[in-house]
Every structure is written in structure tokens, then in C-alpha cells.
């Protein structure tokens, strides 16, 4: 494999603790190495440029059934933005729900090399894997959803952690999944009857279990297995004014639980897109509760979060939170797709326009940024848009700009129609913190890699890590306008993925060597769980047990992470 020496760049790497010093980065045989290990490298001159590890996205909806519903039911999302293929690039199209091919290329252009699909309905795992297979360059994994799964509901009703863990291990293997995802615990099952669970004590119809029991039980089962990632959570009551109390109640369920993982993570719960869960007030008196939320996060080490920043775009919302999408279509009267999945989960898709002229949307924009600016430890607070829910992922560089520049935030405030009311309902206007590139690298590289239990592969430039390196046209030591940040981070000059140069001088140079990550957790033999699985497939599923497991050829280049949970 080729050797590369990236010379004289301003390096930002939280793993090595380098904060913009000029340094060289060496890549050999797909890994970062000491510069002395190179013999005849290709030299990349990074003088005056910013060098970081490849970006890691911990939460985005980029592959699978609901993403494809979004693509197929929104031809307007492709209007005037389809591009022809050229060279090794294939045709591309779509803005908020781009084709898989554009997804891979656009992430690469931003310097990202690893992207986790945030919600995989187990019955649709094949579909998710087929799309990931057709997404070039990126390393990907997918989180199967567990929070409304009938096995889980039945086991956790009686707090059967060992059985839940055995089932999780089985399902991760059957679906080639990466982590335990929970979406509106209990609420999506209730949506099977058109109902919802609005707080952590609202019982699930028929199953007679509360969301609190599901959340706590799944954290415990996750730690029982010692999986690389923690339980990954989307709490009840998303998007409702006053919901921050539900969010805090959900956070508190992790108290007293210690991580049990050999993969270096420190959290037992990752709460995703917290912006949507930090609302105070009620109805039209909707306000930011980001300070209350961040007070909790900052003082509790066993939690990580990601932001879910609103980017003020027209986008396509999609979530396994079925009742929420119904609520949304009632609100904006745009088209609504729903896809409930037998015994497992549900989902909905609704287009949404976040407008700077809308007070509520402007408040949401403030809250996302407030969370980021109130973070005391950027290693535990990650930059996301819950793509495409709060905005498309290609806006990450714009969020970096807002987080890094008060001037950029002020410009946006001035563009709000209801500026005064927005300022009154939020705290952002009074914040003068500007994040550094080092903190951005924590939020987009080292932090998410650590939380995923992948700090042995991604997130930094220490020798031994994967050769994922991005070089940006950005000189932090010269004066710059806020927009320069966005421009530079949207269009990496060079990108290396596992030691292969996939972007050269801003152009796609290779389709890379994409891998699919999944976790093979080996638990003790559990005859009861196997009997329950057989019975449920025989009686309630519409596919047979033997036709459920995703077989190898769906994953062209798998990377299996082995976990031994036998005792």
C-alpha cells in the first residue's frame, strides 16, 4: 500500500493533544505511523492548512427503508441538483435525502470517513445493508432499534436482564447491527394503536411496562454484554414544549450505572439530538431549557449527547418515532409516510421547512447551538443535525461556523423575522464563547469515536489508528471571515481513508475501501430465549426464522468487532 507524508500542516488532534502546532502525519499500510517508519512516501504539502483525523458521525439517517421512502416520495428534493457522473464518480442527486452515492461523496468532501446509520428496523436490515454497500468510501455501521421490540418489552417487564442481553446478542448477529438503539421507548409500540407514551412513566398499552423500565433495562443489558457503544437513546416526547423534564427523567435513569466495556467508552447512555428534547414552556410560549439540560450533562460523566442542530433548511424528517411524525403532519399538513414494523418498531417520514421567519424554528436553532456552547467537555458533546431531521449533514461546516464565531451568530440573529422574541426565549444572544478548532475536533472526531468504542480505530492521529486524515484549506493563524470556515470544511483539499487517498485536490480520486462494522457479541447459551424466538417467528412474524438473518454477501467488506460476554 502507498505511503503518505502530510507535511507541515496545522494539526488539531485531541488524541495526541496537539492544538494547532505544525506537525507531520505519516500513513503506511492503511494506518497512521511514526514519520520515521516511512521509506519513500508521497509527500502532501499541507503548509498553511488544517489537518485533522477523518470525521466520525455518530448519528445520521443515511441508509435504510425510511431514508428510501424519503427519496422516492420526494422527487422535488432532486430538483435542479442532480449531477452527471464523471471519471469514477457515478450520477448523484438529492439534497436532504441524497442518493447513497452522493451521501458517500458529500461526507468525504467534508472530511468525514465514518458514519453510523442511526436506526435500522431489524426486519429491514437487508435493505439497510444494501444501501450501505452502495455508499462509497465511508465506513458504516447501523443501530438496530430495540425500544419497542416485543421480546424486550416482555423480558424487561420482569427485569430479565440476562434474557434481554441474550436477545440483543442474537439480534445484533442476525441483523449485523452495531449498537442498541432506543427510539421513543414504548411510544412506537403504542403507535401500533394510534397512541403514544408521553413520559417515562406512561405505561405501554397491553405490555404493561413503562418507558423508564425499558430504558433502565436496556442500559443494564448493554452493560451486561459490554458492547462497544452504550445504549443510544431518543427519549419520549420529542419536540414538545415542556419536554425537558422528560429528558432529565430519562437521563436520571442512567444514574449509578457504571460502564462495563473494554472499548474505552466512559458513558452508559448516549442521548441523541438533544436539541429536540430541551424545550421549556408550553404551546406558543416555547423556550430554551438548554442550560438546565447542560447543567445535568456537564455534571454527569456517564452520559454523552449529540446536538441535533437546526440548520434552517427545507428538509425531510424521518424517525422510528411514528407518533411524532403523525403529530408533525398534523402541524404542517405536508405529506406523511408511516411504516410500522411487526413486533419491532415503526417509523414516519414528513418533509419540513425550517424557516428563519418562524419564531419556533429560530428558537430551535438557538437551542442546538446553546447546547454546544454550554458544553464543558466537548469530548462528550457531538456535532450532529440528526441528518436529515434538523437539517442535512452538508450543513455541519455551517454549524462549525456558528459555534466558532459570535459574529456569524449575530448575522443570523439579524436575519430573524422575530429577532426580539427569539432572543427573549433563548440564551444564545448573551453567549460570547467561540469554540476552537481543537474543540471542534473533539466534537466531530475524538469524542464520537470514543463514545462508539472505536477509539482504537478512529478519531485521532496517533500511530496505530486507521489512516483517516483530512486536510482543509484553512489557515487558523491568519485572519478569516466566518464564512471561510464553512467554505473550507465543506470542501476538504485531501482526504485519506484507511490509507487510500480518496480526495485529491478537492476531487474524488477513489471510491475507497468501504467497510461495514458490526458487533458479534457472544453470550451464554440461553435456551429460553431461543425458544421464545422460535415461537414468535412461528406465530407472529410473517417471515420464517430461517429467512431472517442477514447473510454475508450483503456485507462486501465486513469488519466484525468481537465481544465475549460469556461467563
Amino acid at each position, binding site marked *: 500500500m502507498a505511503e503518505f507524508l502530510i507535511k507541515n500542516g496545522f494539526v488539531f488532534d485531541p488524541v495526541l493533544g496537539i492544538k494547532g502546532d505544525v506537525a507531520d502525519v505519516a500513513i503506511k499500510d492503511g494506518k497512521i505511523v511514526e514519520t520515521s517508519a516511512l521509506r519513500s512516501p508521497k509527500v502532501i504539502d499541507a503548509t498553511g492548512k488544517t489537518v485533522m483525523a477523518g470525521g466520525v458521525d455518530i448519528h445520521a439517517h443515511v*441508509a435504510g*427503508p425510511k*431514508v*428510501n421512502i424519503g*427519496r*422516492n*416520495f*420526494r*422527487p422535488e*428534493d*432532486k430538483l435542479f441538483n*442532480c*449531477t*452527471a*457522473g464523471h471519471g469514477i464518480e*457515478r*450520477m*448523484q*442527486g438529492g439534497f436532504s*435525502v*441524497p*442518493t*447513497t*452515492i452522493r451521501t458517500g461523496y458529500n461526507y468525504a468532501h467534508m472530511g468525514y470517513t465514518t458514519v453510523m446509520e442511526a436506526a435500522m428496523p431489524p*426486519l*429491514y436490515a*437487508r*435493505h439497510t445493508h*444494501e*444501501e450501505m454497500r*452502495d455508499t462509497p468510501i465511508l465506513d458504516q455501521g447501523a443501530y438496530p432499534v430495540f425500544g419497542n421490540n*416485543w421480546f424486550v418489552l416482555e423480558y424487561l417487564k420482569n427485569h430479565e436482564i440476562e434474557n434481554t442481553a441474550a436477545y440483543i446478542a442474537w439480534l445484533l448477529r442476525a441483523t449485523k447491527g452495531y449498537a442498541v438503539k432506543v427510539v421513543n421507548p414504548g411510544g412506537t409500540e403504542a*403507535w*401500533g*394503536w*394510534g397512541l403514544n407514551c408521553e413520559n417515562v412513566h406512561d405505561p405501554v398499552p*397491553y405490555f404493561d411496562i413503562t418507558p423508564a423500565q425499558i430504558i433502565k433495562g436496556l442500559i443494564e443489558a448493554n452493560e451486561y454484554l459490554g458492547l462497544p457503544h452504550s445504549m443510544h437513546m431518543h427519549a419520549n416526547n420529542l419536540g414538545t414544549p415542556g419536554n425537558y423534564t422528560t429528558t432529565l427523567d430519562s437521563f436520571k435513569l442512567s444514574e449509578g450505572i457504571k460502564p462495563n466495556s473494554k472499548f474505552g467508552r466512559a458513558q452508559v447512555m448516549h442521548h441523541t439530538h438533544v436539541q429536540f428534547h430541551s424545550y421549556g414552556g408550553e404551546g406558543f410560549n416555547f423556550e430554551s431549557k438548554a442550560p438546565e439540560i447542560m447543567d445535568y450533562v456537564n455534571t454527569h460523566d456517564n452520559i454523552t449527547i449529540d446536538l441535533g442542530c437546526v440548520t434552517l433548511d427545507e428538509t425531510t424528517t424521518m424517525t422510528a418515532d411514528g407518533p411524532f411524525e*403523525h403529530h408533525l*403532519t398534523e402541524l404542517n399538513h*405536508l*405529506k*406523511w*409516510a*408511516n*411504516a*410500522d*414494523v*411487526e*413486533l419491532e418498531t415503526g417509523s414516519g*417520514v*414528513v418533509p419540513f421547512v425550517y424557516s428563519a421567519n418562524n419564531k419556533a424554528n429560530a428558537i430551535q436553532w438557538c437551542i442546538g447551538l446553546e447546547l454546544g456552547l454550554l458544553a464543558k467537555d466537548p469530548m462528550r458533546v457531538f456535532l450532529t443535525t440528526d441528518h436529515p431531521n434538523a437539517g442535512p449533514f452538508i450543513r455541519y461546516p455551517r454549524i462549525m461556523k456558528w459555534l466558532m464565531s459570535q459574529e456569524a451568530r449575530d448575522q443570523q440573529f439579524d436575519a430573524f423575522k422575530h429577532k426580539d422574541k427569539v432572543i427573549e426565549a433563548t440564551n444564545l444572544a448573551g453567549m460570547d464563547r467561540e469554540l476552537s478548532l481543537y474543540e471542534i475536533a473533539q466534537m466531530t472526531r475524538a469524542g464520537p469515536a470514543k463514545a462508539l468504542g472505536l477509539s482504537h480505530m478512529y478519531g485521532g492521529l496517533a500511530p496505530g489508528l486507521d489512516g483517516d486524515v483530512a486536510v482543509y484549506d484553512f489557515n487558523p493563524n491568519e485572519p478569516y471571515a466566518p464564512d471561510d470556515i464553512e467554505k473550507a470544511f465543506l470542501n476538504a483539499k485531501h482526504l485519506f481513508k484507511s490509507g487510500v487517498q480518496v480526495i485529491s485536490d478537492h476531487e474524488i480520486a477513489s471510491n475507497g475501501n468501504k467497510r461495514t462494522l458490526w458487533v458479534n457479541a457472544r453470550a451464554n447459551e440461553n435456551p429460553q430465549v431461543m425458544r421464545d424466538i422460535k415461537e414468535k417467528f412461528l*406465530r*407472529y*412474524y*410473517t*417471515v*420464517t426464522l*430461517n*429467512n431472517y438473518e442477514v447473510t454475508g454477501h*450483503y456485507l462486501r467488506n465486513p469488519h466484525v468487532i468481537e465481544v465475549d460476554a460469556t461467563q
Partner: protein
Amino acid sequence: MTRTVTDVICPFCGTLCDDLEVVVSDDGKDLLEVYNACAIGAEKFLHSQAKDRITRPRMRQEDGSWKEISYDEAVNYTARMLADAKKPLMYGWSSTNCEAQSVGAEIGEAVGAVMDNTATVCHGTSLIAVQDIGIPSCTLGEVKNRADRVLFWGCNPAHAHPRHMSRYSIFPRGFFTGKGHTGRKVIVVDPRPTDTASLADIHLQVEQGHDYELLDALRVAFRGEKLPDFVGGIPKAKIYEVAETLKSGRFAIIFFGMGVTQSIGKNHNIDIAIAVTRDLNEYTKAAIMPMRGHYNVTGSGQVWGWQFGFPFAVDLSRGFARYNPGETTSNDLLRRDEVDAVFVLGSDPGAHFPFSSVKKIYDLPSVVIDPHETPTSEVCKVHVPVAFVGVEIGGCAYRMDNVPIETRKVVDAPEGMMTDEEFLTRVLARVKELKGV
């Protein structure tokens, strides 16, 4: 000795039953018996064993007779035809696996083809309606486990999807539906007294072409507003009764078929059927699902969805993907002489397109890839027989509720026969050579 292969997936209709058992000879060459399948599905498996099956590509001679050619020659002819054409039509894609669809899409991209699938004459109107209004739907297991109100509109599963009713919709006993069919109210809307209608609690024999009015009347009835005495030939008392039946259920499901997608009103019928479903969600839980025909027409819409962003009628001739049904749909293209070559795989337009379109196929350079001899093979210049997907080769297929299932290989194809994917992969390589990429 024989052996039995279990959990076999039936590659016939969108019901995609996956519980078939197939008895094969010990050497895996002969398929002897098929269990659990419907009559059509069983026939599909057994038909592959026909002794007079075509096993090598053939080319039409000037006198109209066939001449056997090699796969190499067929690959070359197909690649040349596609590469030389300015705007070839690549149609079908519904009776094959997603792997072949994916390679086909790459060929289409390389040659600037129009990619269209059988939805164009089937549920394409449903796909358009979904783009207008969305679709609240679910998997078939949700129907089995929850539904107590089942409405079939313009479809006749008793004949078209024979095991649908026993596996998913009327008869099964699910988790919350332990009483099976006795716990379900079945409503059929069809101008004809079909075999499905004979199973219904209520059969609304709507006048032909008045589906839109009747669906609209249901929306009026849900709201308790006034109706005229008759709508579409149905007395208003009956409409109020049906509306009340649907609203009073715990979970209502509407299945619809070509009786509404391809009759007067087309996508507008589906539009309002989906609006009816949305309305019902104000009162209870409701879902709606198209009864997709071919076993993997859904899959081709999915593959093109993630590769191009559109589920059918994808025009790649300008170098990027365009979608404009009515312009980029097969029959419109053929009848306006806008395509200069036709490639068919996994469908039989010769049997299902209007005669005026079939004549155009006859006049153009044309290749059909199909295990069977069909009306399409009768009008094409080259016929390439291939292995049966789901019988002689596995691969992914999407059920009518979009659930992907991997079909199985149960017997070997006759010696020397190629699969769809192998043939297309060869064509793609040859196209790239010809195009110099």
C-alpha cells in the same frame, strides 16, 4: 433418495411467501415436488423443469426463424445495441433479484438509458400519489397481528395473490387477533362479484369508474356530513355503515390493486384512498398498502430509489437522473418514437403493453432476457434465456410491504446457463470497453 428444501421463497407475486418446501433429487438437478405454494407458485417452480426449455440464446433470422447463438455473441449484441443507441429503453426489472437490478442500473448509467419497471403499467400511479400525499403503511405482520378491519379495493387476491388472505389479511390468528377471520370485518369494493368479494362481510359493488366519488363519500361520511342518496351506485346508508365499520375498528387496513390504479382517475384514486387512510387515523389506527404484482417490482423501485432517487420512469439519457411520468414512461416513449433500442428483462411487455407499443418494439433493435418463451420474445431480435431467480439462483427481493427477503436457490440451472446478474455483468464490462471507460 430425495431431499426437502425448507423455507423456500416463492418468486411469483408480491406476497413473497417464504414457507415453501421443495423436494429435489439427490443430485440437486431435478425439482420434483412443491408444497405450501399456491397453484401459480407451484407451477412456476415446476415449469422450470420443462424438458423443452430454451437453454441457449437465440437470434432472429431474416426469414423470421431463430438461430442459436452463444452467450458471448448475445453479450456482444446486447452491449453493442445499447452502446450504439442514443436513448435505449431498459424495461422490466420486476422478476429478477436486486443484485441484477443494481448491475442493470449501472449499465443504464453507462449508456444513457431510460430505466422503467412494470410499475409503469401497474402501480406507477400509486407511486405518483405517494409523492403527492405520502402513505401511512405497515408491514404485513402488523395486519396479521392487529387488523380487525380489512378493505380490499379494486383487487382480487383470491386469484392474483392467492395466499395473501391466509397468510396476512383475513384468516391468520395473530397476537391481538386470536379469533382469526371471525374477529375481522372484511369489506370488498369491486364492480365485479369476485371470489374475494364472496368472502366479504360487505361488498360494495361500485359502478365502474366511480371509485373516486365513493372514496370521497367515505371522507364525507367519516365527518358525519350529508351525502346524496347514491354515490357510484351505492346507497348512502351503506356508505355510512362502511364508514362507521372502519372508524369503529382498532386497526384498519386498505389493500388496493389495479382496479383503481389503472381505471379512470388513476393516481387521483390512490390520492384520495390515502386521504381516507389519513382521515381514519384521526379516529383509530389505519394503514394502506398497494398489492404489488411481480415478486420484486418493489425491489427495483427501491434500488433505483437509493441509486437515483426515483422509483420508476428514470431517464438517464442526459447524464443525470430525470423523472417525469407521462414523458419518461415506457409506453409514452415507445409510441412517440423517442427510443431507438429496447432491452427487456424480467417482464413481458409483449403480453401487457398496448399493441401500438409492441409494434414499436418489433420495429426496433431489441433484446429480451427471460427464462420463458413469451409474447415479448416473439417480437424481439435476440432472446437470452437465463436461470430462474428464486429457483436456480438466489438473491434479494422486496415484498409488497417493502420487506426484503433473500430468495433461495433450490436446484441447478441446466448446464451452461447464465443468471441475470452474470449476463448483465458481462454486458456492463463489454459496454465499458465499447465506450472506452
